[in-house]
């Protein structure tokens, strides 16, 4: 039990049996302390010796550089990419739903390339599915998070082929804008949770 008014100080003690070094709380002014070594459980009495030498401090290492934080400049590139991808989604879905003309004419354009199999470029369900991935890229760009996901989804959106490849061209522009503004995206991997 500690008495009121007693000052506690910490002292370094070496066990005489096992030479284990440990820290003990001592009452200031008391010369002899009974203690038990936490390692070998040896009971012994420790005598307090005060080192009267005064300690001096000196500077160590290189002088520290001043690092100041400032707000990172934010461009509108991810926002422009978001708007372009919204257009890609709208064009893709409207191509699938309304534009018979697109579906009728695309196979003729593709047949000129001498492809043997079925031409599914105007396949409305596939167009809509690729457009859904444009939506995922929109979310990532808008939040300026998940750079990898934004890049992959905007790349997939290229294959939506919306309205005479306008959707694809817009997706390519969005893809490039996302790639150029990669520093503005927060990388989840670098963040630490405390």
């Amino acid at each position, binding site marked *: 039990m500690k008495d009121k008014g007693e000052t506690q100080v910490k002292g370094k003690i070496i066990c005489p049996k096992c030479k284990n070094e440990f820290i003990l709380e001592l009452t200031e002014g008391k010369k002899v302390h009974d203690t038990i070594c936490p390692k070998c459980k040896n009971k012994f009495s420790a005598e307090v010796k005060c080192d009267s030498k005064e300690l001096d401090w000196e500077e160590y290492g290189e002088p520290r550089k001043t690092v100041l934080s400032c707000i990172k400049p934010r461009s509108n590139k991810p926002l422009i990419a978001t708007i372009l991808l919204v257009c890609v989604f709208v064009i893709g879905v409207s191509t699938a739903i309304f534009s018979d003309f*697109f*579906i009728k004419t695309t196979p003729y354009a593709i047949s000129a390339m001498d492809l043997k199999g*079925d*031409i599914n470029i*105007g396949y*409305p369900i596939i167009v809509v599915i690729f457009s859904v991935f444009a939506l995922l890229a929109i979310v990532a760009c808008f939040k300026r998070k998940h750079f*990898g*996901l934004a890049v992959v989804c905007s790349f997939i959106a290229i294959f939506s082929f919306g309205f005479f490849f306008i959707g694809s061209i817009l997706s390519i522009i969005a893809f490039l804008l996302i790639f150029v503004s990669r520093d503005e995206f927060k990388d*989840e*991997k670098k963040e630490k949770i405390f």
Partner: protein
Amino acid sequence: MKRRKKSSKVTIVISIFFLLFLVWILLQFLAPLALPYQSVTQLDGVTGFVDNQEQIDNMTMPWDSIYGCGDRLCHQKADRSFFINGNEMPFCTRCTAIWLGLAIGLGFMVFFKIELNEKFIFLIILGLVPIGVDGVVQLFGFWESNNVVRLITGLLVGIICGMAIGVIIDEVNEIRLSRKTKSS
């Protein structure tokens, strides 16, 4: 991935989407069952064209609407479609699998929440690469796909797309909530 709270608004929105797709896919399976045996055997056409208006006009409601959608949205080639009750289904195997996958993916998202992060890329690759490889290789005439492959690839892309729709609904809700918090 974690379990979703049943009472949240997002769950209700995803459930509505899920129910819509579930009803749609059920109608697709019921349509050939509801029509007389072997009354719809040949619907071959081209995507985006109405090729079978005469046959569709002879059908009763609501099956004419479903076959009409199939006529507009799908090629409906008989050799690439499933037959139930001797009748060709309104959509080809791949399309049916995509619709079914969408319902499955959304059904999954009703009960579970997937966080949008870089790991989702692997799911996208898993969903899109098989259908891409199958479609492109067939397009260039290197091989002719079969209905089982079409079913598997369509299901994969449909499930992933359904999940993506669920994730988008979640994210839109999060953006809405964070804006609300900022404004207050």
